[in-house]
Each structure stands twice: as C-alpha cells, then as structure tokens.
C-alpha cells in the first residue's frame, strides 16, 4: 500500500485519490473473500485426514449429499458419514471458532491498547482460565463432593460434571481476570500501560495459584492439568458448538460494530475523545467482549497461544490497520492458522495426537523471532 518512501512525492488529483481509497476497500474485500474461501477449502481437507483417511470425493459426498441427493453419489464406506459428521466436523468447527475468537480478541486488545504485543495472554486471561481449570481438576471433589463424578443432561445432551466444572471454572476465572484489571484501572485518567501492567500482575498471581494446584495434585491430576494447559481440540461434540457458536457470533458482531471507534483510538486517547469517542467505555466494553469470546473457547480447548498475536500482525502487514477489515481478516487468519496446526497435530504422529498447543508454541516462537529481527512491530504510539 505504501510507496514513495523518502523519495520525491507527486501530488495526485482529487479524483485519483477517491479512486485510491476505493481501490484499498476493494483490495481488502478481495482479501476477505480469498481468506474465507481458503478457510473453507482447508476445513474440507482437514475433514479428510486423521487416523483414518477419508477420500475427498467421499467427504464431499457426506457434506453435500443431503443438499443434492440426486447429483452426488453415496460415500464408498458407510462409516465415513459417522467419522466426518460425528467425530471430525465438530472438531473442525470448534477449531475454526477458536481461531476466529483468538484472532478477533488479539486484534481488538492490540487496537484498544495500541500495543502490538498485547493478547489474551498478556492481560492474564489465559492464566486465569488455566487457574480455574486447575482448581476444578485438583479440588473438584472437595468443592462439589460426589456430584463431581456424576453426569447430567441439558436439552438432550449429556455432560459429565467434572468436564462441565472445568469448563465453567476456567470460563469464570477468565472473566474474573479482566474484571480485576478493569477494577484496578477504574480511574478515568489511567494510562493504557497501566492496563497492560495490571494484566501482567494478575497473570503472575494466578500463576502462583496454578503452581499451588500442581503442588497439591496427584500424578493423574498433574497430567490432566498439563494436558489442559497444552491445549487440544479432541473429544469435541456438537453440544460444545451449540454453546460456543452463539457467543462467538454475538461478540464478533458487537466487536465489529466497535471497530470504527477502535480505528480512531489508534491516534491516541485525547484525539479519540475529541472525535466524540467515550474512550473509557470503548476500552472497557472491547476488553470485556474480547475476553468473553476468548474464554468461551479456551474453556473447552485449553490454552492455545500465539494466535491472538500472529493473526492480527500478519493481516495488518497485508491489508493495513483499518479495524473494520482487520477484525474479520484476523478472525479468518486465526481460523486458518489453527486449522492447519491442528490438522498437522493430528497427522504428524498418527494414530497418536500431539497437543496443538505445542505446534502453536513452535510456530509462535519462530514468528516472534522473525518479527523482532525484522523490526516489524510497527508501533510508534
């Protein structure tokens, strides 16, 4: 997008500039459409691979035969339908939703705090969620008694109380972390650095809690905590999607509505206030909704790092910093990165499965080295 750096600048006419702006919008829309198509294609390919490979034609048959029964032949193996619709499809959908959520949350938090290194991790959300999960795993019996080992049904779906408690505790503590950050920074004149610092402090306090839970746990519980904190997308059912999808949709749409104001915030708090933005309200709402969209996913998946940092960065470099386009682009980029990583984690040691968090840490670490060496952080705030 940028040209003429340091060189002689020409003075374009007004009509030319109108066309330039329209061209940027077109380029961004094309990028969003291409990314959507890419995520759809990768999703279908991800459905094909796993412990048992399903041929692409059979996958397409399972997915679309219901829509066009006369045109598409039946799958060659009747078990393929079960493998795809009951085992892989919910996982792929949750992977996409988690990538979308983490991409959006990272982009919104970075925009609100004008810091390219902010993510749900930096603000303590992930650590607080881990603390909640660890507490449930280690102290579940003490907290809930024998009920911890029971199951229950809601709307025809069966949940084990132990899983439910882990999900709920991680969700609640994830939200608690942002509530504490907002409480500590409730003064209207507080700087964005203080918000970030509060998140880091909260993160350390919850980290101490996790260490205590690990210290108090037995071998099985310790392994369960470790696996939860590595992140994973196995054992997903459609009931998970029923819970996650509406939250991601509502939060995503609401944050997109705020995106135009987030743009203005990039010029500084004072300028944003002068341009009619209630900065404190915008920052609080943005942080709460981006935390909500994060915690609802990581409560089910465990900790999946770096998506919230990588996806917005990559998109910012490709289509610029206009949050109206950057938000959906980061969502799609997050989905694409997580889909590819999760698919890799499923096939690299098959039939065993590697926790996707490990893959993400490797990719994220390499990405960060590239960012730091290439000085591509691009912040001047």
């Amino acid at each position, binding site marked *: 997008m940028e040209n*003429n750096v340091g060189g002689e600048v020409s003075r374009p006419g007004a009509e030319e*500039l109108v066309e330039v702006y329209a061209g940027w919008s077109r380029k961004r829309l094309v990028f969003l459409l291409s990314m959507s198509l890419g995520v759809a294609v990768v999703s279908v390919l991800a459905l094909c691979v796993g412990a048992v490979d399903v041929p692409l034609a059979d996958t397409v048959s399972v997915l679309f035969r219901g829509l066009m029964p006369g045109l598409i032949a039946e799958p060659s193996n009747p078990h393929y339908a079960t493998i795809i619709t009951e085992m892989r499809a919910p996982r792929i959908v949750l992977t996409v939703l988690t990538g979308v959520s983490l991409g959006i949350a990272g982009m919104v938090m970075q925009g609100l705090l004008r810091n390219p290194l902010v993510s749900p991790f930096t603000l303590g959300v992930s650590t607080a969620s881990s603390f909640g999960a660890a507490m449930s795993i280690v102290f579940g019996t003490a907290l809930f008694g024998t009920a911890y080992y029971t199951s229950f049904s809601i709307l025809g779906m069966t949940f084990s109380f132990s899983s439910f408690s882990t999900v709920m505790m991680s969700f609640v503590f994830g939200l608690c972390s942002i509530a504490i950050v907002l409480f500590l920074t409730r003064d209207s004149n507080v700087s964005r650095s203080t918000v970030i610092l509060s998140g880091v402090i909260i993160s350390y306090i919850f980290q101490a809690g996790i260490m205590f839970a690990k210290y108090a746990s037995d071998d099985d519980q310790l392994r369960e905590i470790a696996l939860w904190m590595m992140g994973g997308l196995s054992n997903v059912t459609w009931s998970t999607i029923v819970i996650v999808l509406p939250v991601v949709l509502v939060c995503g749409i609401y944050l997109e*509505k705020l995106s135009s104001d987030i743009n203005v915030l*990039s010029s500084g708090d*004072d300028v944003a206030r002068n*341009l009619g933005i209630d900065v404190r309200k915008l920052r609080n709402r943005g942080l709460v909704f981006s935390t909500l969209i994060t915690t609802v996913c990581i409560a089910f998946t465990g900790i999946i790092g770096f998506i919230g940092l990588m996806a917005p960065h990559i998109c910012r470099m490709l289509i610029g910093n206009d949050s109206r386009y950057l938000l959906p682009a980061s969502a799609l980029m997050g989905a694409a990165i997580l889909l590819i990583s999760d698919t890799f984690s499923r096939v690299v040691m098959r039939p065993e499965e590697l926790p996707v968090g490990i893959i993400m840490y490797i990719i994220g670490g390499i990405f960060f080295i590239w960012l730091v060496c290439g000085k591509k952080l691009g912040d001047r705030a």
Partner: protein
Amino acid sequence: MRFEIKGLGQGYGDRTVLEDVSLSAESGEFITVLGPNGSGKSTLIRTICNVMSPRQGSLEIDGRAVGGMDRKELARIVSYVPQTCASFGYTTVFETVLMGRRPYSEWSYSEDDIRKAIDAMKVMSVDGLHDRYVSNLSGGQMQRVFIARSLAQDPEFYLFDEPTSSLDLKFQLESMNIMRSMVKERGSCLIVALHDLNLALRFSDKVLVLKDSHVYDFGPVSEVITPRMIAEVYGVRADIVENERGRYIQPYDYIGTVPCDL
C-alpha cells in the same frame, strides 16, 4: 459562535495547574495562549476541548454547557491537535485524515467524507503522502497530517497545542498563514498554544498569557505582548522592534540565573 470559559480550575492529583482562568473566544478570532514551560498551556487546551473535565468553573458554547453536550455534537464544533500524536502501526495518511470525519459518520465513510478529507490533505500539502504510513513520517510531516485531520473535522473552534513545534521555518509560516486564513475566510476561531512569541505577535488577534497557574493577561496582541510582560513572565529582557515588515521581538538578556543542570 461564542466560547465562554469562566473560573476554570484544573490539576493532576494534588497539583493545581490552572486556577480561576477565564476567557471568551468568538468566531473569527485568532487567540494565542502563551506562557513559560509548565504554565498550563496544554492543560488549558485539553480542558477547553473537554478531553479533561474541569475541576472548577464552567465551559459554555453559545450559552450551552460543554459537559452536557453530546460527544459527537461537540466533536463537530471543537477540534483538537495535541502536541504529540500517536499512530499505531500500519495506518496511512489518508486514513488518519479521514478519521476527522468520524463525528459525521457511523461505521463507514460517505463520498462527501472522503472528498473533505482529500481537500484537507491538499490544504496541508500532504496529499502526496496519502499512502505513506504515518508512523514512518518525520515529526513535521506528522504535524501537518494531524492539522489536516483537524481541518477535515470542519469545526467552528480549532484548538492547537504547539502546532508548529516540529515544523521547519517555511512550514511554520505556511501553517500559520493557513490558520490565519481559516479565521479570516471561513470565520473559524483558533485557540493556539505557542512558544514562539514572534509567531504570536505576527498572527494573533488576542493573546492569553499564563503564569503560575493564573491568567497574567488577556487582550489584544499589541497590548499584551510587551517588553514588560516578556520580562515578568519569561524572565527575559527583550525589545519589540518595528520596521516596514512588522513588529518582532528581539531578546538580549535573561534575568536571574539559569539553573545549572541546563
């Protein structure tokens, strides 16, 4: 339109920065705020544009309390360019100037908004930089971009905090001329915090001088900027010299001692 500021008090924590500041500004006036470092010029500008809520006193536009006005309505009346502006990452000059149209738009910008942003870029000669990232510009170029954003905002009152501090001599004069023409041709009102007494002397209609949190003087430029004011407020002995090109200040000595850490 008339901006009326009465008995304004402002501060940070326990520190009082402004006390009992009063002034009035009308459309078609160029008002400069002068004072030594730390006298409260920037705080006054921030308070007038409601970026900071006043601790005491009242701010009214045509008899309406500024605090009670809708944020977007106020943004259409008052624009503000701070001393230093932030720019996050990959935001272009065009997009930055277009932000000035935010008070008139919702989620997207109309063609009218885009054309007004283009006009503002052309006035400040930054249209050639339209696709450059703001974070990659020089301080002077950035300052012109932020003034252009303020022009795109198309308000009645412009509040600028040291708008020429990063500009070279030519752009200082050019920017001040543009501001002057905004006052004379468009009937806008400018309230500008400045350090350069010569620019204030040359371009202002009225001058407000701050000293020790209070208003030292407020009135027409020729009555306020005097060798006595310069000596009492800045601690500098100066002559005001007049020739065929106008009046200018020639400092020749300072009063007292300069702190040794300078």
